[in-house]
């Protein structure tokens, strides 16, 4: 068993757990629960991107992962800033 096969097994597992944690987004009682779901899905897909780039051994693919991380952070900040009570983060 070489490392390539192990990498692809872990990729399937992370995508599957990302799909399962959609349940928390769909049925969270409060808005914070839905944000937790978005955060955890974003982290798991980031891991999948890094594993895929390391499996193909292409360092240009990793730019996508860095942009992905930046925009997940900005998206969560925007949602948390402009919903709920006014000036919730001040």
């Amino acid at each position: 068993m070489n490392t390539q096969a192990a990498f692809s097994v872990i990729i399937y597992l992370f995508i599957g757990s990302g799909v399962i944690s959609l349940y928390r987004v769909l049925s969270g009682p409060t808005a914070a629960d839905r944000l937790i779901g978005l955060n955890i899905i974003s982290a798991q897909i980031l891991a999948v991107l890094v594993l895929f780039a390391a499996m193909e051994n292409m360092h240009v693919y990793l730019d996508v992962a860095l942009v992905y991380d930046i925009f997940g952070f900005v998206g969560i900040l925007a949602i948390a800033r402009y919903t709920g009570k006014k000036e919730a983060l001040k």
Partner: protein
Amino acid sequence: MTTLLLALHVLLAVIILVSRNMLTAVILLAVLSLFSSLLFFILHAPDVALTEAAVGAGVSTFLYIWIIRKTEMEIKP
């Protein structure tokens, strides 16, 4: 795996269309855009994946959130 991801896209789009809570719809749209970026990445098209991650997850989420706030609809925390 590509077929499963495409089926997931259709399922998520139907859920977004019928959902009544606006915040759930926006967050699911961001999740849909993330999965779509992953699909483009697996199909070896990293430039399209980069555009999808930048526009779909960042800027469009921001614009939708602002528009929902502008209509003064009630959003439960």
